[in-house]
């Protein structure tokens, strides 16, 4: 199996911050908005270098979304920044009316997504945001896996015309993708070719999927691992080619199994190539306080859970 090396743990939100710094230098149309979470979003450098292109809106996310929509009218590319919870559920109608239905070129950038936010607990851990955003017509939905990919995605979405939801997280996680990668929206990344099972993962679970695949290899099971960073539009061709080969799939996401990546994959398979599928995702539940690692284990989102799901789906395939 192809080897991936952790270049040193880093948080994906810092990848966003690094991307914003670079965008600030190369694209004068990029502006940044934040709702009192500058430190959490890691955009200090962008603000220092571009004070005129930063808008501190205070703890007022609805207003932030509307201002972002208005800024596009004068030709700017606004990147909003707050936690995933306050980037989506709290402001759904503002996004729906003023951004998505109005076709505005706003980049909704959301940190602290999912359970790995940790100790703050369920009030701040959103597990429904992918579903909320992918339901909006015209919205692109991206969930990146590490620092390097988040930085690359931040740069890529500035060049994409249309609203985008970019989801990333709080904890430091292995940084294993190429620092010079090009990010192609809607194009899945084949991490490891295999023949027995397809593992499709997004966000923090991509690394866990690779760990699971290594264990499975020692057990004689050949797993194909695909990093689906873009949930909408979904790379159906890559997915279908893989499942046609392996005959079964496990989807992995730090999100509710209702409305997330898994359901998008299931819909695609149902239409084109029905096959057994297992979901590594939360089971229609809220989170709770704890460390990121404890939560991933308790809610069945770590590499052990992925291995178990693979064994289950292989039984169903047989």
């Amino acid at each position, binding site marked *: 199996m192809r080897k991936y090396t952790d270049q040193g743990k880093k948080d994906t939100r810092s990848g966003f911050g690094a991307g914003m710094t670079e965008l600030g230098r190369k694209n004068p149309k990029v502006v940044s908005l934040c709702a009192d979470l500058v430190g959490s979003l890691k955009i200090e450098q962008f603000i220092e270098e571009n004070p005129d292109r930063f808008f501190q809106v205070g703890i007022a996310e609805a207003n932030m979304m509307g201002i972002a929509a208005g800024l596009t009218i*004068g030709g700017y590319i606004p990147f909003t920044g707050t936690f995933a919870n306050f980037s989506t559920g709290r402001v759904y109608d503002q996004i729906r*009316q003023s951004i998505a239905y109005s*076709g505005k070129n706003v980049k909704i950038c959301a940190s602290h997504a999912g359970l790995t936010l940790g100790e703050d607990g369920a009030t701040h851990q959103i597990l429904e945001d992918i579903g909320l955003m992918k339901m909006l017509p015209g919205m692109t939905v991206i969930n990146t896996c590490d620092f390097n990919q988040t930085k690359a995605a931040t740069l890529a979405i500035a060049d994409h015309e249309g609203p985008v939801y970019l989801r990333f997280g709080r904890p430091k996680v292995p940084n294993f993708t190429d620092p010079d990668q090009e990010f192609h929206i809607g194009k899945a990344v084949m991490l490891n070719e295999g023949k027995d099972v397809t593992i499709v993962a997004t966000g923090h679970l991509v690394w866990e999927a690779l760990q699971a695949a290594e264990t499975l290899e020692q057990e004689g099971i050949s797993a194909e691992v695909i990093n689906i960073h873009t949930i909408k539009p979904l790379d159906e061709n890559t997915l279908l080619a893989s499942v046609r080969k392996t005959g079964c799939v496990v989807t992995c996401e730090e999100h509710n199994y209702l409305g997330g990546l898994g359901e998008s994959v299931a819909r695609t398979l149902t239409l084109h190539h029905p096959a057994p599928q297992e979901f590594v995702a939360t089971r229609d539940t809220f989170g709770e306080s704890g460390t990121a690692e404890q939560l991933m284990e308790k809610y069945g989102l770590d590499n052990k859970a992925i291995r178990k799901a693979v064994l289950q789906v292989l039984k169903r395939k047989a």
Partner: protein
Amino acid sequence: MASQHDLEKITTQVRRDIVRMVHKVDSGHPGGSLGCTEFFVALYFELMELHGKFSMDGIGEDLFFLSNGHISPVYYSVLARKGYFPLEELNTFRMLNSRLQGHPTTHEGLPGVRIASGSLGQGMSVAIGAALAKKLNKDKHIVYSLHGDGELQEGQNWEAIMYAGSKKVDNLIATIDRNSQQIDGNTEDVMALGDVGAKFKAFGWDVLELENGNDLQAIIKTLSEAKSRIGKGKPVCVIMHTVMGHGVDFMMHTHAWHGKAPNDEQLQRALAQNQETLGDY
């Protein structure tokens, strides 16, 4: 500059457009539309600096945002009369496959409209964003917006009002249609707004009261005064007192015609009170 007589002719014709549009499809919002007709005519035919041709970015011209999108009939009539799209398109208001949706939208590409509105309380934030973009672009033109008074019950407005005052967004003139009516009755009974001007002042705005918001000359005078206060460190708010349904006697002084169309007989009465001036669409 249009003459007073020309503006009055446009106003009367726009009233006819409004009642005919809502009558045809037996739906829409005539009350607030009629109450703001003078405001729209003064804004588009006297006060705003506009390019002849519509572009989404609006660079180098004044911008207008309608937040209380349900008064789309007056907006559509004035945009068509100003030449943004063919007059006969008013025939398609609220019909299938029309660009003139029940509430304004950019989705169908109607020239003159820059944001979807109608889900109340969102327009001021958008207007602020557009005003900030003008500042970044070193564009000295003004951003205007219109909001219903009942609409101020939506909390997002107060986030926006606080932002504009705190951050000195002084290229924005927000007008409040203070007709004191909303769907369930008088605003002060439904959810008292109290002294709206004092609230804006407390949030750092420059506030002007417009006592007769159905008088063209009074609107032009007050809005011109508002323009003179642009660029002085404060956003400007105009509290415009209007009569809902103005110009059609049986629709005045009541919220009954907020979202109700006239029947055939009522349409004729309304049209008789507003004789054709520029030609019906």
